[in-house]
C-alpha cells in the first residue's frame, strides 16, 4: 500500500516535469532564449542591477534566487535524511560524545600544533571567501565548505569535544538550518517591502540594500553549509 502510494506520487510528479521538458527548446538550439538575450543581459546589466560585482553571484542569488532557495533546502533535507537513516531504531537525539577510553595511539604533538597554528588562518580564509563572493569567485557554499573541512580536521586531530564547542548544542539545529532560514527571511522581507517573494529593490539609490541582502544570504549559506558538513561527519562516526 505504502509502495503503491509512493509510485503513484512519483508518477504524478513526473508527468508535469516531463511535460515541461517537452516544451523546452531543443538542446543546443541557437534560438533558445539562453543564447539570444538572457545571458547577454546578465553579463551586461548584472553588476548594476542585481547587487554583486560577480555575475555568478548575481545569477545564483538574485536572478535565480528562487532556484537557489530550493537548493539550500535540499542540502538541509540531505542532512535530515542522513540523520533519519543513521538514527533509525536508536533512542535519543544524536549520539552522545564518546572520547575513546584507551587511546590506541596518542595524537601526534606535531599534527596538533600545526592544526592549532593553521586553524585561525583557515577560518580567516573561509570568512574571506564568503564575504568576497560578491566581487570574486567564492561565496557561501565555498566558504562554508572550507570552514566545515576545518571542523572535520579539528574533530580528527583534537577530538570531537573540542570541535563541538564551535557549535553549541542549544543553537546547533538553528545553525544547521541557517541557509534556508536566512533565504526565507530575506524572501519574506522582499515580500513585505517590495511585494514579491525574494524581490530585491530596483531603485538605483537602494543598491546598498541589494548588496547587503546578498551578503546576508551568503553568510547564512556559509554557516549552514559548515554546520551540515560537520554534523554529517560526526553522525557517520568520523570521530573514531
Amino acid at each position, binding site marked *: 500500500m505504502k509502495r503503491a502510494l509512493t509510485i503513484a506520487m512519483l508518477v504524478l510528479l513526473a508527468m508535469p516535469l516531463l511535460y515541461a521538458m517537452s516544451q523546452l527548446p531543443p538542446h543546443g538550439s541557437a534560438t533558445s532564449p539562453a543564447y539570444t538575450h538572457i545571458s547577454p543581459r546578465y553579463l551586461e546589466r548584472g553588476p548594476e542591477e542585481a547587487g554583486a560585482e560577480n555575475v555568478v553571484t548575481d545569477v545564483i542569488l538574485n536572478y535565480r534566487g528562487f532556484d537557489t532557495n530550493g537548493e539550500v533546502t535540499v542540502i538541509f533535507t540531505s542532512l535530515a535524511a542522513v540523520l533519519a537513516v543513521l538514527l533509525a531504531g536508536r533512542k535519543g537525539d544524536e549520539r552522545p560524545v564518546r572520547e575513546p577510553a584507551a587511546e590506541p595511539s596518542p595524537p*601526534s604533538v606535531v599534527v596538533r600544533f600545526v592544526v592549532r597554528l593553521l586553524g585561525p588562518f583557515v577560518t580567516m580564509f573561509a570568512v574571506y571567501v564568503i564575504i568576497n563572493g560578491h566581487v570574486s569567485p567564492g561565496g557561501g557554499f565555498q566558504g562554508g565548505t572550507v570552514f566545515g573541512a576545518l571542523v572535520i580536521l579539528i574533530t580528527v586531530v583534537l577530538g570531537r569535544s573540542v570541535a563541538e564547542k564551535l557549535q553549541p548544542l542549544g543553537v546547533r539545529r538553528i545553525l544547521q538550518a541557517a541557509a534556508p532560514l536566512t533565504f526565507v527571511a530575506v524572501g519574506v522581507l522582499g515580500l513585505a517591502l517590495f511585494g514579491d517573494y525574494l524581490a530585491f529593490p530596483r531603485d538605483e539609490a537602494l543598491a546598498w540594500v541589494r548588496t547587503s541582502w546578498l551578503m546576508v544570504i551568503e553568510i547564512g549559506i556559509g554557516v549552514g553549509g559548515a554546520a551540515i558538513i560537520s554534523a554529517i561527519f560526526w553522525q557517520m562516526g568520523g570521530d573514531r
Partner: protein
Amino acid sequence: MSAFEALTNALAAVLCVVGAFFFFVGTVGILRLPDFYSRTHAATKCDTVGAGSVLLGLAVLEGFTPAALKLIALAALVLVSSPTAGHALARAVYRGGMAPWTRPGHRSGGEPK
C-alpha cells in the same frame, strides 16, 4: 631590460627549474622506491622543495606586489602542511605495525614494537 630586471628574471628561472627538478625527483621516487615510508618521503619533497621553489620563483618574478605576498603565503602553507601530512601518514603506518624496508640480508635497526 634593466640589470635588476635581468637579475630577478634569472633568479626566478633558476628557482622554477629547481622546483621542477624536485618534482621530477619526487615523482621518480614515488614510482621507484621500495616501501611506503621511502615513497612518502619522496612525495613530500614534491610539495615542500618543489612547490616551494616554484612559488618563490614566481614571487620573485612578480616583484613587490600583493600577488607576490600571496605567493609567499602559499609557499609557507605548503611548507607547513605537507611535512605534517607526511609525518601523520608515516606515524600512523608505523604504529600500525608495518616494518620499514631494509636491504635483503642487511638487517639493521630495530623492528617496530
